[in-house]
């Protein structure tokens, strides 16, 4: 090591400050998160007391929001393997300051994802039956095995490269609070940074980086198979494994972009996370998004071309029926728009848009706001009579008008986003994640609406699925739990790897060069 571990550069001191300094904003956020979690726990006790009948789930819709959450969180967790393993193996040096963020996302979202099937269980008191009477031919057991393997592996993957940092903190907090001292001393495993220790660490990381990739792929493949192994039209698909994996990586990479922006802003990590990082993550998200779009197309076009009896119902509902708005939002708002937003900062003609009068922000925003106000007022003003022949047409009109207004707004904001690429990346990644959740809902529910034998003689309210406050509260609590785990993690451990970013080059205070991929001379080849 070129320098003694207890010496910290200015930017490292900024990072260390993120561990100890907590403003009112932090406590307010923790308070809100705890409140949301507490409300979710109340909702769950109601569910325990009265049964799953308090949810919107019924015989025809045996799975809903909980399983949507499950697929979503497990999907987001895949980014850890992607960032840490693939980028590590390929020696992408720019990853160094963002890998731990990605791995911590994996850890937090896996915990929340793995919780969801148990929330969904009708008899959580019989959870031990899974061990006592478990049958390996059930995909449920595959899920348990692969997710627990992945959780173990990715926890190790998060922890092992953190050991040198923990040792740094152990020395740094030698006179600090007792809990920190004890925790760091325990977790540092006596790390002294000797040659042998470094050799072992790199060896472990080399092996882990290789084996975590197939494990990660297997996890989301198996998750997709709880659908793919059924005979239901819309789930009975051979492409579900890779399709889910591609969607998982896409949503996970987008989640990292959001996390990067949040930590950069909250912990002042501009020295570590530069615009170059956002650009490179943007490339990654674009690539993964196109792969995901390809799989989506392949998944839908093959049954849609044939329109076989079994598939016709859910396909029609998804493309033009009751799920069409959700579905097209996930495709336009969740794939196309984010990819455009990430591409825009590179397009040279975007500033020229502002020369067009109706695309200048002030007149455009004024017009759009007025139109939206008129549209909102319209239904109240219009007579609601059947005699008005074209009433349905009028009622449908606002959808298209709002779409057009949205497009207009997007064009108007393009030059703004070009000037603020990080804002563009954050908006894009949030859109990706919202749409990712909705898309999992659209994978699960429409298929259930169209079983082989039609839904008949269902008791009132059983023939459609409407999530209840219980499900939504528990979902909100899961999201809050994810954020809370992530937040507390960043308060106990540095969210950017100190020793790995230190190794990166000889210029401790320097920001990452725009090209990103300069290797430090001291670097061993990655991992």
């Amino acid at each position, binding site marked *: 090591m070129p320098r003694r571990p207890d010496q910290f550069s200015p930017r490292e001191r900024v990072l260390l400050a993120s561990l100890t300094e907590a403003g009112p904003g932090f406590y307010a956020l923790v308070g809100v998160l705890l409140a949301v979690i507490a409300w979710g726990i109340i909702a769950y006790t109601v569910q325990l007391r009265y049964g799953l009948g308090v949810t919107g789930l019924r*015989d025809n819709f045996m799975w809903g929001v909980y399983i949507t959450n499950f697929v979503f969180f497990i999907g987001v967790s895949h980014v850890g393997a992607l960032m840490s393993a693939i980028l590590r193996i390929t020696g992408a040096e720019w990853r160094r300051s963002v890998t731990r963020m990605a791995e911590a996302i994996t850890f937090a979202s896996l915990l929340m994802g793995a919780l969801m099937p148990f929330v969904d269980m009708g008899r959580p008191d019989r959870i031990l039956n899974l061990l006592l009477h478990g049958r390996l031919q059930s995909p449920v057991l595959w899920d348990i095995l692969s997710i627990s393997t992945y959780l173990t592996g990715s926890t190790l993957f998060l922890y092992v490269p953190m050991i040198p940092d923990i040792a740094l903190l152990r020395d740094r907090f030698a006179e600090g609070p007792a809990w920190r001292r004890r925790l760091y001393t325990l977790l540092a495993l006596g790390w002294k940074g000797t040659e042998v220790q470094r050799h072992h660490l790199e060896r472990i990381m080399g092996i882990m980086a290789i084996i975590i990739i197939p494990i990660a792929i297997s996890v989301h493949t198996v998750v997709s198979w709880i659908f793919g192994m059924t*005979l239901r039209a819309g789930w009975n698909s051979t492409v579900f494994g890779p399709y889910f994996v591609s969607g998982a990586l896409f949503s996970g990479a987008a989640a990292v972009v959001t996390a990067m922006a949040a930590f950069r802003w909250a912990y002042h990590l501009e020295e570590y996370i530069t615009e170059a990082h956002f650009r490179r993550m943007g490339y990654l998200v674009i690539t993964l998004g196109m792969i995901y779009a390809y799989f989506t197309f392949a998944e839908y076009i093959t049954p849609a071309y044939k329109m076989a009896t079994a598939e016709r119902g859910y396909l029609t509902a998804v493309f033009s029926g009751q799920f069409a708005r959700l579905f097209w939002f996930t495709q336009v708002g969740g794939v196309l728009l984010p990819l455009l937003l990430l591409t825009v900062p590179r397009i040279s003609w975007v500033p020229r848009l502002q020369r067009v009068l109706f695309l200048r922000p002030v007149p455009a925003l004024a017009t759009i706001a007025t139109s939206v106000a008129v549209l909102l007022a319209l239904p109240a003003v219009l007579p609601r009579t059947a005699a008005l022949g074209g009433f349905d047409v009028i009622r449908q009109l606002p959808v298209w008008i709002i779409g057009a207004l949205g497009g207009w707004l997007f064009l108007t904001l393009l030059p703004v986003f070009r000037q603020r690429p990080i804002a563009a990346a954050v908006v894009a990644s949030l859109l990706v994640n919202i749409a990712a959740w909705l898309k999992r809902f659209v994978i699960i529910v429409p298929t259930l609406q169209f079983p082989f034998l039609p*839904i*008949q003689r269902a008791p009132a309210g059983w023939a459609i699925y409407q999530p209840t406050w219980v499900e939504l509260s528990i979902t909100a609590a899961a999201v809050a739990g994810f954020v809370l785990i992530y937040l507390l993690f960043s308060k106990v451990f540095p969210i950017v790897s100190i020793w790995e970013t230190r190794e990166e080059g000889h210029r401790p205070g320097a920001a990452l060069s725009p090209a990103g991929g300069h290797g430090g001379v001291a670097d061993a080849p990655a991992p």
Partner: protein
Amino acid sequence: MGLTRRSFLKILAAGTAAAAAPLAGGGLVRRFRIRPGSPNLPAFVASRETPGTVVHLSGLPNSGGDVAVAYAAEPNTRTGPGEAGRRWVMVIDLARCDGCRECTRACTAMHFVPPGQEWIRVYEMKDHEEAAPYWFPRPCMQCDNAPCVKVCPVSAAWKREDGIVMQDTSRCIGCRFCIAACPYGARSFNWVEPPHTPEELAKPDDIEWNFRHRKGTTEKCIFCPGLIKQGKLPACADACPMGAIYFGDQVEDAVTNSQGETVRFSELIKENAGYRSLEELGTEPRVYYLPPRKRIYPAPPAEPEPATMGGHR
């Protein structure tokens, strides 16, 4: 688990030995399942209590001669193989079904089926624009290649030797994978604590009668093994006023309906172009249907009852 597996094998061995005994005698093993007390029954009693008893059939059409009765003592354990040497089968004659839903009512009454569930549900079907509508009673198909059994993580659903797909509500963890897997929608979930009537509580908690009902678990039709044991038809078949539901043993190649008509299963299927629902899925159902040809009842309304679907969500 080890205990049950061992005892399972023991039972299997005992059953095989018992079944082999009459075979060694050279007789044709064919046993008709008769519903005692039904009118027009040939004058004999299928003495199920004595394994290996040979009974003579004379009054039945196409009776092939001597019929051997062979089965092992049936332990009412959770993983029992069911009645050895039997393959229970149901035939539903759609030409006779008039959609009265007596089957559903009888089933619900017999099993104290919780509200919101119909273990045998009568659908109103219309296969395509030109097709005539018809009634379609759907019990559990007791599939030989049962999707629900495959996906159950805890063996709460399992297949018995006699063809019945059983369901153990005291083991079920309520993951509802079986409901997702069943293409016939034959499985129901107890979303809330089922109402318990004094009548239900007065009866023993027996897996073969499918009560007591438990919150957070899956249930379904199991061909009434409790009634079969007593030599009776399942509740739905017994209740059908049209005699549309035949029930019997595929091994002895005979099925009986509520009218006391006992016919050869294979010939009934062959002569009436019997089919199985969603054959293309390969689930190998044990419920057969006879097409709704020359119906002897008023057809359902031309427009099938719409599933009460909501509009845009």
